[in-house]
C-alpha cells in the first residue's frame, strides 16, 4: 500500500529534477530545508528522525541534493521526506513537506477492532511493518 502524506500527496513520486525544483523553490523563499527519515509509517507518527540539522544559509539546491543522496545511501529502504520551514512567523512553521524516498515493499495496515463495554467498538490501524523492531522493518 503506497503511503501518501504531505504537500504533494496526491501526485506520483517526484523524480530528482522535480525534487530539486521544489527545494530550489523553498530556498528562493528563504525557507530553510531539512531532511528527515523514519521506518514507522503510521500517519500519526509526526516525529521523524533528523538527518543532520535543518540547513540554514543555503542558496542552491545542489547542497540539499547532496545531503539527500547521502541519506538515501544510508536509509535506502526508509521513508525520507523533505521539509521547508517558513521562519517569518518566529516559530517553526512547516511550509512544505513531501516524501522523496520510500521502501520497496510497503506492507500497509490492518484494521484492529477493540471491543469494550456495552458492545462498543474502537477502531484503530496497525502498520504491519512495525511488527518488527525498528531498523529491521523493511529489510
Amino acid at each position: 500500500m503506497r503511503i501518501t502524506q504531505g504537500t504533494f500527496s496526491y501526485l506520483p513520486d517526484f523524480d530528482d529534477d522535480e525534487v530539486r525544483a521544489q527545494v530550489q523553490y523553498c530556498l528562493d523563499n528563504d525557507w530553510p530545508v531539512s531532511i528527515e527519515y523514519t521506518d514507522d509509517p503510521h500517519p500519526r507518527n509526526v516525529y521523524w528522525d533528523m538527518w543532520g540539522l535543518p540547513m540554514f544559509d543555503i542558496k542552491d539546491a545542489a547542497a540539499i541534493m547532496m545531503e539527500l543522496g547521502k541519506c538515501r545511501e544510508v536509509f535506502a529502504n526508509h521513508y525520507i521526506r523533505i521539509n521547508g520551514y517558513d521562519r517569518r512567523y518566529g516559530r517553526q512553521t512547516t511550509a512544505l513537506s513531501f516524501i522523496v524516498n520510500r521502501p520497496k515493499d510497503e506492507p500497509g495496515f490492518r484494521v484492529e477492532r477493540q471491543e469494550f463495554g456495552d458492545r462498543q467498538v474502537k477502531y484503530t490501524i496497525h502498520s504491519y511493518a512495525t511488527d518488527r523492531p525498528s531498523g529491521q522493518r523493511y529489510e
Partner: protein
Amino acid sequence: MTTNHVQSTATGIDLDAAFQASNIQPVLAELERELVGLEPVKTRIREIASLLLIARLREQSGMATERPSLHMSFTGRPGTGKTTVAIRMAKILHHLGYVRKGHLVVATRDDLVGQYVGHTAPKTKEVLKRAMGGVLFIDEAYYLYRPENERDYGQEAIEMLLQVMENQRDDLVVILAGYKERMDVFFQSNPGFRSRIAHHIEFPDYTLDELLTIADLMVQQQMYRFDGDARAAFAEYLELRMRQPYFSNARSVRNALDRIKLRQASRLLRQGGTIAPDELSRIDAADVRQSRVFQGGIDK
C-alpha cells in the same frame, strides 16, 4: 542557468548577438572602470569570459563540450584586490550561466578546520554547502596545511575540498588566495590542488600612479576632495610609505585616508568659528603632512 538562446542559422552564428545576450559587457565595463591597473588580471578574466561564451555556443550547436574547470588561485601581496576581484568573478560567472546563484562565500582556516576529531568534516561540509551555486573564496589557503603538526586536521578539510572540487564542478567554483611564495609551497606539498586548479592568476603590486588614482577614486566616493597641495603631499606620502615595511597597497591607501579624515576633522574643530560648507570636504596639505611617515616613522 540563464538560457539566452542564440539563433544559429545556416549562414552562421552571430557572435555579437551572443555577446550582447550574455549581459557580460556591463560587468566587464564595470571591472574596467572601477579596478585600477591589474592588467594581467583583467586580461585573464576577459579570456575566461570568452571561453565560457564559446563553450555555451558550442553546446547550443550540439558540439561536445566538457565543462571547463574554473577553480582558480589568486596570488599577490596584501591589498592588491584579490577579494574585490573574487566578488566580481562570482558575478561574471553568474552572468555567463556557469554558476547558478553567483554569491561569494569567504572562508578562512577557522571556518573549515575543526578543533577536535570529527569536527572538521561537518564544518567543511557546512561551508561547502553554503557556497554551492556560487563561489567559495578561501583566503590564505596555505594555513589549511600545517606540515609541522602531523595531527593537524587541516588535511581532512583539504581532502574534502578536493573531492567536492572534482565531483561537483557544476555546483561551485573554488578560489584560493594568498601570498605568492607561500601559495607555491602549499601547491608543492598538495599536488592535488595544483592539478585541479586551471587558472593561476597573479596580482601585481600597484605602481605609484595607480595608487594615486585609487586614492582619487576613494576620496571621490567618500565625497571628499584633495586640494592641489594636498594631492601633491599625498603623492609624496605614498612614495615614502611604499618603501617602508608592511606596505599593503590599496589597503594602506585606505587606512591613510581614514587617518587623514581624522586629522581633517580635528583641525576643523580646533579652528572653530564659521566655515564654508565646502571646507567639510576639502583635505588640506597639513592634514597629510602631519603623518608620522614624513618624520621617518611608520603608519601601520
